[in-house]
């Protein structure tokens, strides 16, 4: 039985797509290249040639014919920074992708349910009480998750756990956290604590070392593995609660699991380097532009793009001028115009 019909002219068809494996291989190669290039860039005067020589010689186990300081800079200063920037970029991009799918809204970011604002409060409190940097990291992680826990609990108390209740709850909790942060800033010592809190908020990878990365590695790995495994299900969930259930998907358990894992990723990122905006919002769009909206395709691509992006941004932050530029400033400067350009391209679809 054939139903002859007039169809609308094909939009961006993506028919005959490049297989996703090609994209992933290509982006992974790009990532490796970016890492190598960024390892060679820094304020300490070392030529690219010298850096490459040290890296290759070290890998080959050769005897050092260079100052140990140079080796330390490459492997203990730049490399942990690059690794954590990559992890954070990938985390935020993946979280953003997941939230955009679950909440059926391409305009949401990983901060939707209050993780970032909660983490800020945790870090600010630790700074206010003059606790050491390790405790600050722990407090940021813990309070970020507490905030999400609160966001997930409020709808339960109100008797409705639909998506819209969740979003509303996220708005309330974020606002609450914002108030707490304001109160903490008000009583903080303006000579050093207030500055430290603001600096932490603006995001920086300058103090990241291997132990910091190791401490959040487990939650991050869990987050990545679970969310990437759920990528098809996120698309089913993007049909909306009623429709997803009619198709046979256990909407609430999957959604809650995804929210928790995305929160693990975001909390881990924020506690390593402070809050970074725009990445979780813009990178998923970019990934969708490249490979289409299927979660199974664009979510892994999002991760790789996010990692590349964040590494490039951080390397720029530490090299573009004598002073280190806070990360959020750069991501905003790059992210906002990019977002406008994206909006222009998608004008037709949005109408």
């Amino acid at each position, binding site marked *: 039985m054939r139903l002859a019909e007039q169809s609308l002219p094909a939009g961006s068809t993506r028919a005959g797509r490049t297989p996703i494996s090609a994209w992933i291989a290509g982006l992974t190669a790009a990532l490796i290249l970016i890492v190598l290039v960024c390892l060679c860039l820094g304020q300490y005067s070392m030529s690219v040639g010298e850096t490459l020589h040290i890296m290759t010689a070290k890998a080959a186990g050769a005897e050092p014919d260079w100052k140990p300081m140079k080796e330390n800079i490459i492997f203990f200063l730049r490399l942990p920074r690059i690794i954590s920037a990559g992890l954070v970029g990938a985390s935020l991009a993946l979280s953003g992708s997941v939230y955009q799918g679950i909440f059926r809204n391409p305009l949401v970011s990983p901060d939707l349910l209050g993780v970032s604002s909660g983490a800020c409060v945790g870090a600010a409190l630790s700074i206010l009480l003059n606790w050491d940097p390790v405790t600050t990291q722990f407090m940021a992680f813990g309070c970020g998750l507490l905030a999400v826990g609160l966001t997930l609990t409020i709808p339960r108390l109100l008797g409705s756990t639909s998506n819209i209740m969740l979003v509303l709850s996220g708005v309330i909790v974020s606002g609450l956290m914002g108030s707490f942060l304001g109160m903490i800033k008000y009583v903080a010592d303006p000579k050093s604590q207030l500055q430290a809190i603001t600096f932490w908020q603006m995001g920086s990878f300058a103090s990241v070392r291997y132990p910091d990365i190791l401490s959040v590695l487990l939650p991050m790995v869990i987050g990545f593995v679970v969310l990437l495994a759920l990528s098809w299900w996120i698309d089913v969930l993007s049909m909306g609660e009623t429709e997803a259930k*009619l198709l046979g998907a256990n909407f609430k358990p999957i959604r809650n699991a995804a929210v928790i894992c995305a929160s693990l990723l975001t909390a881990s990122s924020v506690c390593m380097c402070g809050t970074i905006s725009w990445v979780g919002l813009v990178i998923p769009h970019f990934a969708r532009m490249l490979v289409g909206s299927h979660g*199974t395709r664009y979510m892994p691509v999002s991760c790789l793009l996010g990692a590349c992006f964040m590494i490039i941004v951080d390397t720029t932050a530490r090299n573009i001028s004598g002073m280190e530029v806070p990360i959020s400033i750069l991501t905003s400067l790059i992210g906002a115009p990019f977002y406008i350009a994206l909006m222009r391209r998608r004008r037709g*679809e949005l109408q």
Partner: protein
Amino acid sequence: MIYDVRKLQFAYPGGKNIINDASFTLDEGEILNILGPNGAGKSTLFNCLANIRRPGSGQILLNGKPMEKMSVKEVAKVIGYVQQTHVAVFDYTVIYFVMMGRAASVGMFSKPKEEDRRIAMDALKTLGIDHLAERPYTAISGGERQMALIARALTQQPRAILLDEPTSHLDFGRSTLILELVRELKSRGYSVIMTTHDPNHAMLLGGKAALLDRQGILHVGPAEEVVTEENLRPLYRSELHIVDIPQLGRKACLSAGLKAI
């Protein structure tokens, strides 16, 4: 028996019964048209049958099992639901969209497999839209989207297909095509439940018809017996006529021209 509905009752909190004691059965290859005026509870009844709402009392047995004891996965393997309209947020391809019908059979942390894709393509072929498989869902016409929705329901490999006013957004020609499709589904062995505004649909399709009147009583029976002037006039509060049209070999439900208000 696919559907065994016993004494369904539904009332909104603080309100009177919208559905009172509704009962019927539906077998393979049978079709049920649910007619009723706006606001009488037709959609509510339909949603109860689709497991979107819980009835106040009464029982629905799906393939012999009580529906309230079935998981969403189990229900999805029996019922394929086709909604009136679908708002597309993301531009998935048609084939990807239709493959979501396999959700009930896909494991927790996996994706659909080749087998699932084949089933989805078969469904597209059945509906004659397999040439649209790689098109973005947002770039096809309304009628083609309706086809895609039905294809997705078929992909679930259900026993019953539920269609909620499938022709309400389609033009005259396409509406007729959909009805022909529905009859085809019936003849292929699916149980079909359809809600409709138009009594003519019930008459064209035959099978069973059900009227939900303003007192919440469900009158079920063969279409010819149920779709009568005596039943329809108080239902729609309209001076309608059921007319036999020899040239076309069918009966039609028509109004007698427009009156002055």
